[in-house]
């Protein structure tokens, strides 16, 4: 999963629904694996396939009109369960970026920990982006992590997005939090000692 992130320009997959919860991203019955592989096959399983396992043609992932490594979703994406399997499914399917006007907390962290970049944009930018994709499914979006900008290349409109300096450094250099924590063991032991003496 560790991969360096820099600038990505891609077409988008639009999912204009709000409150998409992690039970929709990956239903609980698919959480029984003991490794991180294969979850992409079941991304949005119950919207994507019918009971017999046939693709539901109207669902966006089954529509050849749309493609690319950027998922664009309505507000409050990833609410509900903390299951990181949702982030593994998104990454496993091949998405590198998710754009929304609002993300649920835990899921946002889970995406970052799997080198998927959650990009928070304004409600207006999001509405215009859905509109641009609707007009031209081949339009592209440019996500520039070093400069923290996201650009709708159909309209030329651009917005800044937030990410803390530490996490940006991790993404650009393919480093994870455990690498960092293991380098800081002395500080942890010092904290424990302080508690014992208190």
């Amino acid at each position, binding site marked *: 999963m560790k991969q360096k992130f820099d600038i990505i320009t891609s077409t988008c997959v639009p999912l*204009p*629904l*709000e*409150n998409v*919860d992690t*039970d*929709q991203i990956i*239903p*609980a*019955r698919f*959480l*029984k*694996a*003991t*490794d*991180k592989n294969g979850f992409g096959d079941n991304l949005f399983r*119950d919207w994507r396939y019918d*009971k017999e396992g046939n693709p539901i043609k109207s669902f966006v992932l089954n529509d050849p009109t749309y493609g690319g490594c950027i998922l664009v979703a*309505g*507000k*409050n994406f990833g*609410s*509900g*369960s*903390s*299951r*990181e*399997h949702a*982030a593994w499914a998104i990454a496993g399917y091949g998405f590198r970026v998710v754009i929304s006007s*609002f993300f*649920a*907390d*835990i899921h946002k*962290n*889970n995406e970052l*920990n*799997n080198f998927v970049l959650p990009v928070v944009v304004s*409600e207006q930018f999001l*509405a215009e982006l859905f509109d641009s994709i609707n007009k031209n499914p081949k339009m592209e979006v440019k996500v520039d992590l070093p400069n923290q900008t996201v650009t709708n290349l159909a309209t030329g409109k651009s917005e800044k997005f937030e990410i*803390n*300096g*530490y*996490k940006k450094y991790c993404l650009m250099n393919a480093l*994870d*939090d*455990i690498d*960092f*924590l*293991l380098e*800081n*063991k002395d*500080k*942890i032991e010092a*904290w*424990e000692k302080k508690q014992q003496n208190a």
Partner: protein
Amino acid sequence: MNTLFDKIWDKHVVQIVEDGPTQLYIDRLYCHEVTSPQAFAGMRERGLKCFRPDQIVCMPDHNTPTHDQDKPIEDPVSRHQVDTLAKNTADFGLTHFGMMNPKNGIIHVVGPERGLSLPGMTIVCGDSHTSTHGAMGAVAFGIGTSEVEMVMASQCILQSKPKSMRISVNGQLKKGVTAKDVALYIMSKMSTSGATGYFVEYSGSAVKSLTMEGRLTLSNLTIEMGARGGFIAPDEVTFEYLKGREYAPKGAEWDKAVEYWKTLKSGDDAVFDKDITFDAADIEPMVTYGTNPGMGMGISQHIPTLDTIDAAGQISYKKSLDYMGFQPGDSLLGKKVDYVFCGSCTNGRIEDFRAFASIVKGKKKAEGVTCWLVPGSWMVDEQIRKEGLDKIFEEAGFALRQPGCSACLAMNDDKIPAGKLSVSTSNRNFEGRQGPGARTVLASPLVAAAAAVTGVITDPRTMM
């Protein structure tokens, strides 16, 4: 500033990373079988041992069947996941309450009842309902599997400090209104994202009047409005509950602990980023009508009409009601019920079964309703039997099942079939949560019991 959240959080800060998150020390890590295997695999790949194995407690709950637990699990995939937890905990030297161990149960029921979750602690688990433990006066929250691995490796986690919110519920709760109704009411006002980015302190006379079981229910559901977690400052109710529990401090250690716990409250001058107040008198027994827990209403009310929903949300709203088979403007009273589930980390405690028994006593289970009564742990099961509630259930035509997450999330055999309507005391009514196509109405144990004996959605106040 000077909130209880600040006090507990700040005490656990190891360092603040420059232009980045806070490195927070974690007192207790809980692991279940679903969100831990990849963390253990990561530890093996890096050649690491758990940094503080004594602070980690593990148990299977999601996959455990609620019958014949003495036999091997039939589903080979579920069995593999449960066996993997047993192997991992043995390899890494961790405490493990396996299936059929009298200490087993749903992790968020077992932690508090065994005295493993204590005031002032930082507690995490790869499970969003970790917020439950906040009822003990702890900062407790759900994390992802990468973060579980972080805690195994270093007993620390990297997090941005959330903002603080106080939600006060003042006044006296009316007859038939439980902690579950208070939580569903708050969510219906806050929506599922209304508290995202915040940590919630519950306060006010109605909250303080709740028993420990009620407080656990309220804290449990905090995640459903997007908050990281929610907690209640510890008081005599907390201390009384914890005294004598297996893993709680004893003797002089207990006295010292209580002395410290008594200091755990927000200062009179505390400033919250957001301060919200509700009136207990406005709350009636609640039911949900849609596919997220924020879509709730008083049981006597009608489903909101489309013109009350903002434009961007209308597609989702229509999709949601279509899934449920409801129409805008509908009342839920009198709707035929197929399944009733009483249990889960939300409502699987002794008080919930007392409430259920109070309604079904002397009545009979309705024809055509399948009802699952699932204690949250073996300890709850034991108490049910000690109080003779099992006899009341039996006479009314109900059978107790064995402890586990059961029908809350369709990972074991207890699944609601497609198109069937379930009145459930669990925490999520998402599409497919209780089984593909299953329709879930979230409610309290009182509403669930009323549905179980009448066969339709019924106001329990008419039966009390």
